[in-house]
C-alpha cells in the first residue's frame, strides 16, 4: 500500500505542481517502488484519456442568443459623462476654479442648478484665453496621419496644469486611448471647441479613451493630483481601429 505522501507526490507530479526538490524525490520514489510506478502509470493513462477527449462545440446560435439578451449600460455622450463625473465634486465648479486659469462656458454653467447635470448642451463651451492662460506654452505635439484618422494632438502647460488639445478627423470609428499613469496628473476637465461627429469619452485612473468618428476638436485639462509635482515621462496616445492599433505616439512632459 502506497503511503499518503507517495500518493500525494505522484498526483502532484501529474499536475505539474512539484517543486524542484520534490521532483527529485518523485524520481527517487519511482526508481525504488514498483507499486509507485504502477500507480503513476495508471494516473498518467487516465489523464491522457481525459485530455484526448475532444472538446464539444457550443451551438452556432449560442453566442448570438447571449449577445441579444445582454443589455449593457448605454454609452453616454462624453459631455453627459463629464457632467456626471463632476457632479458633487469640488471640481464641478469648473476647471478654472480649480486651476485658476480657465474661463469656459462649460464650467460656470455647471455650477448653477438651472442646468441639469445631464444637460450637456449647457456644457458646450470654449477655452478662452484669459489672464490665467498667460504663460502656457506648447510642450510637445503629435501628428497623426493614418488612413483611419488624421490630425494632431498638442500638449501645452504651465505650472501644475497641462492641456491636451485634440484636433482629429476620422473616417471610420476609432478609439483614441490616452495613458498618463504615473505622471502625477489627474483629469481636470474637458472643453470642446467644435463638434462635427460622434464620440463618447470614458475615464479611469490614469487614462481615458475617446471613441470617435468624424471631426473633433476638444481639450482635456490635466492637473497635478494632490499638488504633487508632475513626474517626468510621457503621455502615451494610441489609436485603435477594430481593436487593432493603427497609431502610437508619446507626448513628452
Amino acid at each position, binding site marked *: 500500500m502506497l503511503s499518503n505522501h507517495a*500518493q*500525494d507526490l505522484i*498526483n*502532484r507530479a501529474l*499536475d505539474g*505542481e512539484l517543486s524542484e526538490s520534490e521532483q527529485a524525490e518523485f524520481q527517487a520514489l519511482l526508481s525504488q517502488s514498483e507499486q509507485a510506478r504502477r500507480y503513476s502509470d*495508471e*494516473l498518467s*493513462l*487516465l*489523464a491522457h*484519456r*481525459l*485530455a*484526448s*477527449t*475532444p*472538446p*464539444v*462545440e*457550443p*451551438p452556432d446560435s*449560442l*453566442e448570438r*442568443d*447571449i*449577445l441579444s*439578451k*445582454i443589455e*449593457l*449600460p*448605454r*454609452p*453616454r455622450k462624453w459631455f453627459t459623462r463629464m457632467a456626471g463625473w463632476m457632479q458633487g465634486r469640488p471640481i464641478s465648479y469648473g476647471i478654472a476654479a480649480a486651476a485658476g486659469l480657465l474661463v469656459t462656458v462649460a464650467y460656470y454653467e455647471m455650477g448653477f442648478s438651472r442646468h441639469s447635470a445631464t444637460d450637456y448642451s449647457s456644457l458646450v463651451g470654449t477655452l478662452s484665453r484669459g489672464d490665467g492662460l498667460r504663460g502656457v506654452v506648447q510642450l510637445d505635439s503629435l501628428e497623426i496621419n493614418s488612413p483611419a484618422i488624421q490630425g494632431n494632438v498638442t500638449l501645452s502647460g504651465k505650472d501644475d496644469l497641462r492641456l491636451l488639445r485634440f484636433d482629429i478627423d476620422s473616417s471610420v470609428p476609432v478609439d483614441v486611448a490616452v495613458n498618463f499613469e504615473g505622471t502625477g496628473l489627474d483629469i481636470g476637465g474637458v472643453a470642446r471647441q467644435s463638434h462635427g461627429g460622434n464620440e*463618447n469619452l*470614458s475615464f*479611469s485612473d490614469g487614462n481615458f*479613451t475617446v*471613441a470617435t468618428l468624424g471631426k473633433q476638436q476638444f481639450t482635456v485639462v490635466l492637473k497635478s493630483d494632490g499638488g504633487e509635482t508632475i513626474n517626468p515621462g510621457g503621455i502615451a496616445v494610441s489609436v485603435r481601429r477594430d*481593436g487593432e492599433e493603427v497609431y502610437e505616439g508619446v507626448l513628452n512632459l
Partner: protein
Amino acid sequence: MSNSQDQELIRRCQKGDRRALEDLLMQYQRPIYNAAFRMLGNAEDAADITQTVFLRAFEHLDRYNPDYKFFSWIYRIAINESINQINRGKRELGLEDSQPATTEGPVDHFQAEDASRRIQDALMTLQEDFRMVIVLRHFSDLSYREISEVLHIPEITVKSRLYSARQRLKEELQEDGEP
C-alpha cells in the same frame, strides 16, 4: 487572456462597449460551455447554463469584485448553475446532441466519440463534488489554486478530492472494461 485584460474589457462593458462584451464572450463561451457539458452530460443543458452564466454575470457586473479573477467568478457561477440544474433533475444523460470538435476521419471520429461517451458516462457516475474537480482540472486545465478560488475551498481539499475522484474514475473505467 490575462486578468488585467479581462479587467479592462469589464471596465469597457460597464461603460456600454459591446465590442468588449463580444471579446469576453469569445474568450469564455467555449470553456464555460465545455465545463457545463462535462458537469451535466447534456448539450442542451450546457447551452442553457452557458447562457445563464453570462446573463447573470453581466446583470450583476456591478457586484463583480475586481480583486478576484473574472474567470474564477464566471466558472463559479457555471459550477453553481450546473449543480442547480442537476438538483432540479433536468439532466438528460447522453452525448446525442454534442458535436465533438475533431478533424479526424469517419472511423477515428466514431472511435473518438465512443471514447468520449465512455469518459462522460464514467464522469456522470461520480458524485458532484468529485466531478467538479475532475472537470476543472482535466477539462478546464485549472491549477490547484485556481480550482480553490473557483470552488471557495482550501487547496488541500482540492487535492484530496481530486485524488479520490481520480481513483473512483479509474475504477469506473476499469469496470467498464477499459485498461
